[in-house]
């Protein structure tokens, strides 16, 4: 009797390989079918067969009359996601370093962040809307929407920073040795090389989670929709492949963000491993 990680591959390897392959197909299959169907010809419908190949539905997407304000939704969702990304990185990195020391209220802050992760998005959405009403400010995507998104991205950012900083010996930071200034310590001794890939991961979470967030956006963005809300209204109104075309476009943007993040992390690790 041997371990699965040694010697001849056991039969379970093949069973689990098949299961894993089926799972990946289940994960990606429908998405790729949607990508294909978004290139339907002008007379094509929501299902196979393909009636020709065209970009008709992509063009229809940005003509206001047919599908609502998709262009406007993009012009709000992208900047919002970028702002959320920058703020998530700044706030979770600084807070991540602070959590390396014990301080009064650290437990409370930690559990509030965890609670923010667990609370159903719609519940928080109601709460933020009511808060805005009490304070007499209208709900706007760049204010209440931004806050709602941060309540979702910051806990993830914080947990990633905990995982990253756990690998950092406390002696690296804060205690300038042999005459190095604080900044020199930060820059040269592993702090930046270790923290930087983590920051990219936090940025990826900040951007994509904000860009795709629906429940926390629903009541908090005000009268001008962000993209996921626009898609949500389209699911009930639009019965043409334009819906799939929108899916293809937003997925492409997500994939570019993911590719950039994973690519740059891999590049940094590669350079670091070559240097040592």
């Amino acid at each position, binding site marked *: *009797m041997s*371990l*699965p*990680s040694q010697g001849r591959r056991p039969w379970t390897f093949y069973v689990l390989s098949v*299961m*894993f392959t089926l*799972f*990946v197909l289940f*994960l*990606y299959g*429908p998405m790729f079918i*949607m990508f294909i169907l978004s290139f339907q010809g002008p007379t094509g419908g*929501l*299902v*196979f067969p393909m009636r020709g190949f065209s970009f008709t539905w992509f063009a229809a997407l940005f003509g206001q009359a047919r599908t609502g304000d998709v262009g406007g939704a993009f012009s709000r969702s992208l900047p919002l996601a970028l702002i959320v990304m920058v703020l998530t990185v700044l*706030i*979770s990195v*600084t807070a991540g370093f602070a959590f390396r020391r014990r*301080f009064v209220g650290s437990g409370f*802050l930690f559990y*509030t*962040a965890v609670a923010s*992760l*667990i*609370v*159903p*998005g*719609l*519940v*928080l959405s*109601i*709460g*933020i809307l*009511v*808060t805005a*009403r009490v304070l007499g400010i209208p709900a706007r995507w760049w204010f209440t929407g931004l*806050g*709602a998104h*941060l*309540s979702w991205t*910051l806990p993830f950012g914080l*947990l990633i920073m905990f995982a990253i900083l756990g690998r950092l010996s406390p002696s690296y930071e804060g205690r300038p040795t042999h005459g190095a200034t604080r900044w020199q310590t930060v820059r040269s001794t592993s702090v930046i090389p270790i923290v930087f890939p983590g920051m990219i991961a936090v940025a990826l979470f900040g951007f*994509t*989670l904000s860009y*795709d967030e*629906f*429940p926390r956006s629903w*009541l908090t963005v005000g009268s001008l929709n962000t993209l*996921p809300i626009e*898609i*949500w209204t389209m*699911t009930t109104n639009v019965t043409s492949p334009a819906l*799939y075309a929108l*899916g293809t476009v*937003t*997925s492409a943007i*997500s*994939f570019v*963000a993911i590719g950039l993040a*994973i690519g740059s992390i891999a590049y940094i690790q590669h350079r670091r491993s070559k240097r040592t």
Partner: protein
Amino acid sequence: MKPNRLLTYLQVTPLFLVLLFFVIVPLALVLIVSFFRYQMLVGLVPDFTFKNYIDLLSNPTSWKLYFSTIKFTLIVLAITGVLGFWVAYFLVFHVRNLLIAIALFLVCTVPFWTSNIIRMISWRPVLGTEGLINTALLESGLVGEPISWLLFSDFAVIVAYVHLFTLFMIVPIFNAMARIDKALLEAAVDAGATRWGVVWNVVLPLSKTGIALGAVFVVTLVMGDFFVVAVMSGGLSGSATSGIFNDLQFLNYPRAAANAVVLLIIVLLIATAIFRLVDVRKELVR
């Protein structure tokens, strides 16, 4: 106060402010508003009444909605738990090249960073009556007419949940398993354990924190969901949150708030129960 300590507080201030204004105050206000009175056309009327809660709890529909939500939660928990455990087990213990394991792990996590709504919509051309599965079944002659319960049914809801949420199980279980010292498994085998015994007595207990963390995510995501149920069941099924959704469309904030409080209490009870079983904080901070 030492300057170092002051710096620490300055460093957490932005986080604290965001959590205060967008989590703590909003949740407190939801609790307060749930005791307010609702009046047509006026909306919120400050009051202290249990009417919203009584309305909610005496209404058979809300019991039905909660029952259906809990049913979905348990089914999805079971499926994603088993699937997540074996996918993680495969990646950690069967794939021998670390780079390939990381690549396959990323393949499992990439959909997390794409739109949930889009991924859900993408099931339509697959499950619909003219969709891929029905077309294949019809053409192969296995069925005489399209199966109608594939889309707009409880089945479709569960498929979508498993599709969207399994990776919330895979990631924490993978993390827990990756930390298991392989020497421990060798020792177990040397001591005469069967391969199944190693999985059951060594791997499973050591993955407990991962499973617990994944379970908390799946429970809160399913219980807090309303749009998967709305789209995939075609309005045939509901969830606890779809009750809130309906109240909000009639601008009945007090009853929506009361419903939200009840939901929140149930979710937090389940989460603390799971956190009690396993010390997840140790796992997270480690």
